[in-house]
Every structure is written in structure tokens, then in C-alpha cells.
């Protein structure tokens, strides 16, 4: 019944709109552009928020990293001895749960070794690219990652690797993501894969662990990590990954640095950037994403404000122009509710026009952005939510002018303006 009444009101509304083509078109255009811009901006915000909250798979809240550079002129044997002594010293620090050394750490933004894995030595198709962490038998516990299949490394499997040494581990541990890429069907455990320097076996599979490159840019290999049982003797240095028992790390970091300082002559640790917690690394790594999110949100807010302002402005103008018509309708028996409804329905019709046009524009804009900014395709529900927001916004914006219109007394009809 109510619907029927609204429908019968629709025709005169549309007829009236055709008398104000330009003004109507302007609001339609405005709503359309707002929908196109806002849905794309909000979609970018949503993808970035999802992106910057990707977990590394590690116990981030309890991890910090020490970037340790070796002083010049030390040979491999000396570096190995230093490394072992450092790890032993760090393990004795109160509050430290576990430690291992590697060449890279999660959220570092780079620095990791990259290895291509083949299933057959003579394979001609593209090998699967993996991101390496040098690890030992303590690595899994230190990172706080979970081993879902197979076994951990054993102490005797950990090799020492000088800068130009070949990587020839007896076994490696891979993430589930990488395992699945190597063996889409069946289990990767026990499988033989070929590193550039020879074959090795997959002895364990991790639930998940992000490679060191993960950050503001997305790569399809972000989750494809591999643990290589090795201690890097690279004369440049190593990173120590330290897992603490508690979340307040400041005192543990201080004590850890003091413990290393006892043999300070062999190393350099940058006072400013030498120590970084994984929480800080996350902030740094996703800084670009955060600025995009903030920026887009601010602009979206301004956009909606502008559109609402425009609707309020034009609607009040229309109301003031139509005082006489409203007065005539009122004196012919239209209730205040009728007048209110008239403006709300009119607004709905106009915004619907804008939404239809804007939906098309939104997808076109998304197509362009996909080329330029590596955005995924926008799912249908984003502009739908946008449309819903605009309908609501339109109704809210027209509420004031409509109420003002409903207050027009019937006597206006017979009085001269």
C-alpha cells in the first residue's frame, strides 16, 4: 500500500525533475563522481589495511633483532668462534628465551638470500623462488613458528657458510606455502629438491613464515620461505634474532648489548639502528601503506562532506524556488508528510541515477588503477556499500531542506511572493 503511494508519487517527481535538467544532472554527476572516487579510495584503504596487518607467522611481540657487523680483518675461524660465543652469551641473558643467527629477519624489507628450487636437475620450466633464512636447531623456537610436519634440524647438521661457499644442506625446512607450490598434490615431506648447487631433502614443513622481503610492496613469494641449516660467516656480519619471555624488551635489550659489549673489540653495532624490535620493523616496513590509508581516509571524509554540502545547498535552493507550488499542494490537501516524502523520494531518484552512472565509472577507474598501482579487481560489494552510503547521505542531507519545505504554510499559495 505504502509502496503503491510512493509509486504514484514517482511520476510527477520525475516530470518535475525534467524541468530542472541541469541542476539534476549536476547532482547526478556529483554523486556519480563521488561514488567512483570514494569506492576506489575505500577499496585501496581496505586492501592496504589487510596488507599491512599480514602476520609474519612469528611471535612478533617477543622478538628483537641485533644487527652485528664484524670488525675488519677477521678470518672465518675467528668469526665462527665469535658467533658461537655471542650466541652463548645472549642465551645467558635473563629474560631471553632463545636466540639464533641468520642473514635476514622478517619485515627487514630485503637482505635475504634468494634461491631457486627445482624438482629435477634438468628441469627447464621456471624454478620456484624461495626466500632463505639461515637457521639452526633453535630457529623454530626462537621465531615462534610451528612445525606442522617432519622434524627440526639437529645440531650436527648446521654447516658454516663463508660468503662464497656453496649452499649444500643435507635437509631443509620449507613453509607450507612453498611446499604446496612445489608439490601441488601430495606431501612435500621427504621430497628431493635441487638447489643451484645440488640436491637436498625436505625434512620439515612450517605452518607459515614470511620472507624478509615482505613489506609495502607485495610479492607472490612473500610466504615462500626456506630454512637452511647454516651459520653465516659472512665477514660483513650477521643478525641475531632474540626471543624474549616478556613483552617489555628495553631492559633485556640493554642487558643483551652489555653482554655483547664484553667482547666489543670484535664487532660494531650501530648505536641508532643496531637493534630493532619486530614491532618497529613492521612500522617501518609498512610506512607507505599507512600513509596511503590515512590519506585516502581523509580524502574520503572530505568527499562525503562535499557531496552532502552540495545536496543540502541545491535542495534548499529548490525548496525556496518551489515555495509557491508547495503552498498550492498544501492548500489542495497535501499533508506535511506528503511534502517531506516528496523531497526524500526526489532525492532518492536523483541519487539512484548517480549511483548507476557512478558504478560504471568506479569500475572503469578501478581498471585504470589496476594497471598503474597493482590493485586487485574491485569486488562488486565495494560500490554497493558505497551506493548504500550515498543513499543514506542523500536522505540525511535532504532532511533539513525537506523539513523546511514541509513547514511552508498553505497560505503562501494565495499570497504574492
Amino acid at each position: 500500500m505504502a509502496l503503491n503511494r510512493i509509486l504514484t508519487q514517482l511520476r510527477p517527481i520525475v516530470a518535475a525533475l525534467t524541468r530542472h535538467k541541469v541542476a539534476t544532472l549536476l547532482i547526478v554527476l556529483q554523486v556519480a563522481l563521488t561514488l567512483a572516487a570514494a569506492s576506489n579510495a575505500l577499496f585501496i584503504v581496505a586492501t592496504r589495511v589487510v596488507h599491512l596487518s599480514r602476520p609474519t607467522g612469528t611471535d612478533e611481540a617477543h622478538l628483537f633483532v641485533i644487527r652485528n657487523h664484524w670488525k675488519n680483518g677477521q678470518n672465518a675461524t675467528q668469526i665462527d668462534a665469535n658467533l658461537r660465543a655471542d650466541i652463548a652469551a645472549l642465551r645467558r641473558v635473563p629474560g631471553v628465551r632463545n636466540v639464533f643467527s641468520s642473514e635476514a629477519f622478517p619485515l627487514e624489507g630485503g637482505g635475504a638470500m634468494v634461491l631457486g628450487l627445482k624438482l629435477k636437475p634438468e628441469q627447464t620450466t621456471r624454478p620456484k623462488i624461495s626466500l632463505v633464512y639461515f637457521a639452526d636447531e633453535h630457529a623454530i623456537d626462537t621465531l615462534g613458528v610451528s612445525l606442522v610436519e617432519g622434524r627440526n634440524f639437529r645440531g650436527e647438521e648446521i654447516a658454516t657458510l663463508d660468503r662464497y661457499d656453496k649452499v649444500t644442506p643435507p635437509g631443509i625446512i620449507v613453509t607450507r606455502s612453498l611446499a604446496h607450490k612445489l608439490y601441488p598434490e601430495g606431501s612435500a615431506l621427504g621430497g628431493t629438491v635441487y638447489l643451484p648447487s645440488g640436491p637436498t631433502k625436505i625434512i620439515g614443513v612450517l605452518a607459515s613464515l614470511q620472507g624478509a622481503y615482505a613489506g609495502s610492496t607485495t610479492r607472490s613469494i612473500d610466504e615462500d620461505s626456506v630454512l637452511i641449516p647454516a651459520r653465516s660467516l659472512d665477514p660483513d656480519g650477521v643478525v641475531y634474532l632474540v626471543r624474549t619471555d616478556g613483552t617489555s624488551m628495553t631492559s633485556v635489550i640493554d642487558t643483551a648489548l652489555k653482554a655483547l659489549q664484553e667482547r666489543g673489540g670484535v664487532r660494531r653495532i650501530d648505536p641508532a639502528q643496531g637493534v630493532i624490535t619486530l614491532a618497529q620493523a613492521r612500522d617501518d616496513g609498512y610506512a607507505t601503506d599507512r600513509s596511503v590509508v590515512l590519506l585516502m581516509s581523509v580524502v574520503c571524509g572530505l568527499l562525503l562532506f562535499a557531496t552532502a554540502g552540495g545536496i543540502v545547498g541545491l535542495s534548499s535552493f529548490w525548496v525556496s524556488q518551489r515555495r509557491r507550488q508547495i503552498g498550492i499542494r498544501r492548500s489542495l490537501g497535501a499533508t506535511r508528510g506528503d511534502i517531506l516524502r516528496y523531497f526524500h523520494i526526489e532525492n532518492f531518484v536523483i541519487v539512484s541515477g548517480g549511483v548507476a552512472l557512478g558504478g560504471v565509472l568506479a569500475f572503469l577507474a578501478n581498471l585504470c588503477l589496476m594497471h598503474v598501482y597493482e590493485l586487485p579487481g574491485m569486488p562488486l560489494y565495494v560500490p554497493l556499500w558505497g551506493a548504500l552510503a550515498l543513499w543514506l547521505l542523500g536522505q540525511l542531507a535532504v532532511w533539513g531542506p525537506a523539513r523546511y519545505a514541509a513547514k511552508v504554510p498553505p497560505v503562501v499559495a494565495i499570497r504574492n511572493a
Partner: protein
Amino acid sequence: MWGYYVGLALRSSARSKALTALVIALLAFGVSACMVSYAVFRATTSDPIPSKSSRLYMPQIDNFGPSSSGGEPPNNLAYTDANALWQAGKANRQALVFPTTWELTPGDRTASSVSLGGDAVTADFFAMFDVPFRFGDGWTSTDDAQHGSVAVISHRLNDRLFGGGNSVGREIQLDGKIFRVSGVLEPWSPKPRFFDVATLGPLSAFDDVGDVYVPFTRAIDLKKATPYDYCPSYATDLGVTDWDKYLHSECVWINAWVELGTSADVQTYRDFLRNYADEQKRAGRFTWAPNGRLRNLTEAMTVLHVTPKASSLSMLVSASFLLIVLVNVVGLMLARFMRRAPEIGIRRALGASRGAIYRQFLIEGATMGCVGGIFGVALTLLGLWGANGLFEPKIARLVHVDASLVASTVLLAIAATVVSALYPTWRAAQTQPAWQIKVNG
């Protein structure tokens, strides 16, 4: 006439305060969003060396081949190619550059050693990039040839080590080796850090430059590589078992720059690059057709994606915001002008020409634009102050306000309003005087 119309505009604004305030607020927001984005965009796309950029070129050689490079040659050169180009000396000036980290041993034995960033460069680097010296000078090509132990240091390092005095001829210890200071730089930090960004990557494009420069040849002697190298394959054994094999591998890590005076020189150098790649093909090193590039500095910065995506994205978004604001302003102006149909009717009836109506309303538009622009400047300043929270600190601190930014904010606001007032003004000028007077009579 102007003054009269401005007066009319102000009087009519006073009559419809809400509408006027809305138009001005929208304009101010639209324009300032654009100007904040533009200020950041301007900072991130600025020319690091305006006096020279048109003459600086970045040669690239495809030593990876189509299967690894995907058609676009790597941004850096392998040592083999870098050295060959440098030795050939076909350009007016040429610089090989790669970033390095050094361990500085202070003269005072008790102080602990520190890490120093910097670059290994060839002698032309300083003259080519107009690097300003406070004391002394760069080294000569003889030092390059003799792998000399000389260094150019930043004013910052000079202040720290030598108390800011003239330290030319003094010695510093890098990685345990003695280097003689040949020059001290004035504060110098081109943004972007164009000369080695191909190695460091776009995320470091706006970092400060390092503190110490040493001869390229000497750094190679000391086996100073950069961790930011890029090798043609991760899946095959590249046979790199020691430094020498690494040096002569196809891994790329060296930035090459050449200075070329005329377009004829550029063409000659392009030919030289093609011939070089052809030679390598004949020698059996490359099995593919020459696929080199010779890009000027501006093109090179584009290819290296120096401008952060957040910056160009915000430019795009705020431009569409301004567009939406303008559509809005057209509607509001239309409302404002149509409301004054009686006034226009009377003016026309009293003898005002259509031209006079056009002038009146366009000037009214410009006046509102001007006021919007002034508020826009205030909002832009506020926005730039807020840019510290929106952009990464190293980018935010590059953003600055100058007279041209303020002037263009106001101009943009005026232009935008006048453009959006065109249609409403035309409608206003169409008003039939007789009709208006009759209805309201």
C-alpha cells in the same frame, strides 16, 4: 566598475550567508587538498640537479638476456661492462658509482670504530654532478689509474674528525687502511639521491647521502661490494666461488652515468653502446640482440620508480576531489545566481547589457574564489604541517611552502571558481527582464 561589482558580490553574499560559506569552504578544501598533494608531489619529483640534468644519461646494457630480464635491461651494470664503458671513455665525462659502508677507525685509539656510509666513485663524479667543495677538491684521473688511497669527506665527518678545520692532506683510516683527504664537501644532499638509487632501490631514494667518497678502483682492490646486487639467476650455480669470480660474474650492482653535451653526442653514445653489445655477442658472451638503453636523468628517475606511489596516488585522488568540488560549486553558483533573477531583471530593465551581467557575475565568482583561495592557503599550511603524520618523515621534511605555492593556491581557487561560474553566469545573463518584473510586480 570592478569595485562596484565586488561590492555587489559581497552584499549578495551577506544575504545568503550559508550558501556562500558552503561554496567558500568547499573551494578551500578542494584547492588545499590539491596543493598539499602537489607540494609533496613536487618535492618527490624534483630535479636533483637542475643545472645539469639535461646532460646526464644513465647507460644500461642487457647482460641478462631476454629470459631473465623480460625485455627490460637491468638498471645497474656488471663490473665487466661498467669497466669497459669507463675505459672506452666515449663521453665527455663518466662516473661509475656504487654505495659502500666503511669502518672508520678514529685517530683516538680509545674511541670505538664506527660505520660510515658513502660511495665508491670515479674522478669525474664531482665535476659531473656539480658537487660543492668547502676545502680542497676531488681526486684526479691519475689517482683513479693508480688506485690511489684518497678520500673526499662530508662537512659532517670533517666537523666530527677535524673540528671543521681545513683537513685537506690529513689522513683517515677506513677499514684499517690509510686514506688521504683530498677534499671536504659543503653540505650537499641531492633529493632524490639519484646517483646510486639504481643500486639502493627506490625506498632509499630520499635518504641522505653518505659521508665518504673513495676511488672506485681502490674500493674494488679492497673487495668492497654492495649487498644490493642483482644476479641473473637464483636457480643455477653461477660459479661464484671467490671475489674474483664474483667481480667478473654477470651480477649487476654498479651505477653508470655519462655526461653528453649535444644530441649528436647522445646518438654517438647510443651507437657505441649498440656496438659494444654487438661485440659481446660476437665474442659469445651474449646470445641475444643488443638491448641497451641510454636514458636521461629524468627518464631514469621514472624508470627507477623514485616517486613514491603514495605521492602520485594522492595527487590523483585530490585532483578528482577538486573535480567533484567544482561540479558542486557549479550547482551552488547556479542556485545563487538564479535566486537573483529579479535583481538581474531590474538591472537589465534599467539598461545593463548582457555583457555587464556577465562581468558582474564572473567578478562575483572570482571574488568568492579569491576568498576561498585565502582560506585554502590557510588549510594548505595546516595540511602541510599534517603531512608529517601522513607521509614518511624523510619525505615530509622535503616538503616546503614558498611564494609560488601560495600564489598558485589562490590562482587555482580563482580559476576554478570562474570556470565553474561560467555556466551559471550564462544562465543568469539569459534572464528576460520583462518576465521577471511582471511576475514580481
